[in-house]
């Protein structure tokens, strides 16, 4: 039986509303509004425990049904390509029983949307989904109750269907949601125990509707931050140092000031030129003569790993089972290996961009950001404004991948809007994007492991430097294992020569590369097929099923590696999502170029909200993952970033495309997990294992660029005396 608290929410809600929230209600008008209430409902704690975003503590709308029947969903999440503009709308429409097309998603607007930690870590559907569904369920309960009163029918004899409430027995007796909402102001809090629909009755969720943003995007009408144009707006270009750590000694701006229409602004560290046209601003910037001190750190992409190891903080044991020394006593074959991955750029096609305008002490910033509420705080601090005087609006993002969390460009635009008194657009150049990226941190993993006489792993001693986190501990069934982390990927930011931060699959790529490469190395030592060897060490039923289905789809036949066939595999459990991938690669021995020809990707993400969307994410992960596997690394020297363009920082291209087969394992017993990241973590090891399979050369460092492959081939030829 449905449990709705029929308290009088009007008074309690009103009491708790802060002034700006009242303002918000005014914007919203009448209708039915469901809030998230203070005090966490029963389903919240494990999202917090799992490291999920804290849920809003103030009163914020999750959804409203307006007097015209339009349903709006308000979320602090943003759309950056991952398709939540559709999948969240699907969850809402399903639970509320409205056509998908009548749901309007309002995303990433700090004045309108509930507080949100940010869109990253692939958590939107998993963590935002449950309260959203609860809000919809509550709204539906309210509608049924109202309809009961209106139609004079007991609520249990009513049902909802596509935006109307009708009597089950005589469907002609009906009333639409809009009519019910008309002239009302009903506010509700999220129920403690929402009565949700059974998955078996789903008609919208679990399907793949066409993306609601697609038509906007194919016609060029979708607005990204750089497409916002305001009357009198100036475009800014900012003076940048040539290297991280460089200090400005002097700047001569008089030539720039003489260019007609150019405004030069200088405030502390910020020197900018502004013009009503971006290309003129660019010319003006070139006219500034500046001198910087150049740091000499003697640090570069070659010696960074040594330096990181030397600078590593004390290790912390983050996971342990059994006793390593006992395991060592049981081992007959011991293997040691070190794996490294350098700095990897996010390189979204849209660079960091923001437009800011200031009116009456209030600033509005349209920003390309994964963290609108973070940006709000940063802008407020930079401008010494109270939080409620800063509004961040997030248009579509042209990609994020974890790289748009720092909001430096939003602060720059806001400062310049304040200084000039005019609306200002800041759009980073590609070089600025590569320079100020918050790179995936460089990291090192050292593994020592042992096999016993029956080829079972008896110990696994894993040391991870600068990539510690939830992806480091091994899920394999090993009696004696220990994971020691020396600095987590997020804590150790200050140890890096420039900004680092989350990158699609944070701490997953380096750790999975190490673990899954090492598993193949052990399989080779054991003279076993890599799949059979893994199966001997996996107990998780979901993972077993995923591996089985990958093997079937791929047609994996048992053979020890290197088989000469260039086959490679990898698997993982990523925050509740089970994944496996198998692939086949060719290595061109004259160029060193590796081509992945075929890929099978299998994923169990629990309930699937949008199957096509989930598959697109897997394909995107596979393509993007080939980049960090085969080409992507940022070279640097003394704080200077050497790869500042796509000419030398090579992204995966069309010709890299393998034939990709994606398989989704439906798992209705498990609530929806996220699918935007897991698969990318497998690509490094899969490719390394496939290259080993093809040419018998084992790579311990990423990326496996043609130069490195060629060098390794020459070395191995030299060793075998054939060179």
């Amino acid at each position, binding site marked *: 039986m449905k449990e709705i608290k029929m308290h009088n929410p009007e008074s309690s809600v009103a009491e708790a509303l802060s002034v700006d929230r009242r303002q918000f209600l005014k914007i919203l008008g009448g209708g039915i509004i469901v809030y998230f209430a203070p005090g966490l409902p029963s389903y919240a704690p494990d999202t917090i425990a799992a490291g999920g975003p804290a849920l809003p503590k103030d009163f914020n709308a999750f959804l409203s049904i307006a007097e015209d029947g339009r349903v709006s969903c308000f979320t602090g999440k943003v759309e950056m390509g991952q398709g939540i503009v559709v999948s969240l709308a699907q969850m809402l429409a399903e639970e509320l029983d409205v056509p998908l097309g009548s749901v309007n998603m309002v995303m990433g607007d700090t004045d309108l949307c509930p507080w949100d930690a940010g869109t990253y870590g692939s958590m939107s559907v998993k963590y935002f989904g449950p309260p959203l569904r609860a809000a919809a369920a509550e709204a539906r309960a309210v509608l049924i109750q109202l309809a009961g009163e209106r139609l004079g029918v007991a609520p249990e004899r009513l049902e909802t269907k596509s935006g109307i409430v009708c009597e089950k027995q005589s469907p002609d007796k009906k009333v639409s949601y809009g009519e019910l909402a008309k002239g009302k102001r009903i506010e509700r809090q999220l129920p403690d125990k929402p009565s949700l629909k059974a998955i078996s009755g789903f008609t919208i969720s679990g399907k793949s509707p066409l993306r609601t943003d697609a038509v906007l995007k194919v016609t060029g009408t979708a607005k990204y931050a750089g497409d916002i144009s305001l009357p009198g707006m100036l475009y800014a270009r900012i003076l940048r140092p040539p290297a991280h750590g460089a200090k400005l000694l002097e700047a001569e701006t008089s030539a720039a000031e003489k260019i007609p229409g150019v405004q030069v602004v200088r405030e502390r560290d910020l020197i900018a030129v502004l013009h009503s046209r971006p290309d003129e601003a660019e010319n003006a910037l070139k006219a500034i003569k500046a001198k910087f001190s150049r740091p000499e750190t003697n640090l570069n992409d070659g010696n960074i790993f040594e330096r990181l190891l030397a600078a590593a903080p004390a290790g912390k044991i983050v996971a342990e089972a059994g006793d390593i020394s006992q395991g060592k006593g049981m081992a007959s074959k011991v293997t040691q290996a070190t794996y490294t991955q350098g700095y990897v750029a996010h390189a979204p*096609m849209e660079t960091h961009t923001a437009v800011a305008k200031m009116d009456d002490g209030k600033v509005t910033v349209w920003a390309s950001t994964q963290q609108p509420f973070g940006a709000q705080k940063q802008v407020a601090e930079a401008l010494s404004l109270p939080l409620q005087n800063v509004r961040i609006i997030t248009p579509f993002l042209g990609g994020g991948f974890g790289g748009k969390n720092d909001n430096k460009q939003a602060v720059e635009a806001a400062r310049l809007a304040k200084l000039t008194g005019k609306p200002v657009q800041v759009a980073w150049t590609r070089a600025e994007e590569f320079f100020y990226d918050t790179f995936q941190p460089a990291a090192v993993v050292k593994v020592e492991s042992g096999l016993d006489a029956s080829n079972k792993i008896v110990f696994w001693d894993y040391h991870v430097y600068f990539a510690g986190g939830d992806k480091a501990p091994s899920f394999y069934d090993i009696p004696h294992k220990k994971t020691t982390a020396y600095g987590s990927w997020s804590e150790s930011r200050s140890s890096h020569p420039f900004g680092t931060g989350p990158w699609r699959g944070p701490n997953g790529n380096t750790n999975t590369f190490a673990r899954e490469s090492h598993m193949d190395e052990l399989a080779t030592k054991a003279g076993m097929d890599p799949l059979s060897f893994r199966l001997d060490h996996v107990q998780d039923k979901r993972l077993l099923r995923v591996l089985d289905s990958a093997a079937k789809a791929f047609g994996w036949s048992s053979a020890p590696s290197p088989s000469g066939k260039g086959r490679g595999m990898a698997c993982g459990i990523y925050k509740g999502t089970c994944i496996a991938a198998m692939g086949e690669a060719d290595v061109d021995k004259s160029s060193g170029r590796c081509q992945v020809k075929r890929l099978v990707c299998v994923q169990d993400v629990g309930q699937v909200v949008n199957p096509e969307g989930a598959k697109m994410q897997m394909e995107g992960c596979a393509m993007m993952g080939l980049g960090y596997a085969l080409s992507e690394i940022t070279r640097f020297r003394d704080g200077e970033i050497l790869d500042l363009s*796509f000419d030398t920082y090579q992204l995966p291209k069309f010709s890299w495309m393998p034939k990709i087969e994606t398989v989704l394992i439906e798992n209705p017993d498990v609530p929806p997990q996220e699918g935007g990241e897991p698969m990318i973590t497998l690509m490094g090891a899969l490719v390394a294992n496939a290259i080993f399979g093809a040419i018998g050369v084992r790579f311990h460092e990423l990326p496996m660029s043609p130069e490195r492959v060629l060098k390794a081939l020459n070395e191995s030829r030299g060793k075998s005396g054939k060179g």
Partner: protein
Amino acid sequence: MVDTIEFVLNRKPVRLQVEKDRALLWVLRTDLGLTGTKFGCGTGACGTCTVIINQEAVRSCQIPMADVKSKEILTIEGLAMNGRLHPLQQAFVDNNALQCGFCTPGMILNAYSLLLKNSAPTEAEIIAGMEENLCRCGSHIRIVQAIQTAAKQMRG
């Protein structure tokens, strides 16, 4: 050097007083308010700024205004006609050939010129023709499928 430059933009004549050396990309985006053409690199390396000039896909960040004199330019805003999506646009929608969508206008226009030259391209020809347009989201597979779908439809 300001000059009067006349050209046809999305089937309509345009006459502009503009510096000859300014890049077409910025004139489109700022002076003409056509923001569907995207800035991705400004150095000709990504293809997000692709437009069609006299039936040829070009990178508008590399085209000075002097070069568009008397030319016919088509941008993403001009592709749909009479409120109907071009078959390529429709195929991108139907095949989910986009994620963030930032590369999409450039992809579609590059494919448009590809299909003008070769109405029945093989998969390998599509890949070769699209090679230098970058997509960070990894929508490549579906983009190729969308182009195949559109090609088929346009051949009738």
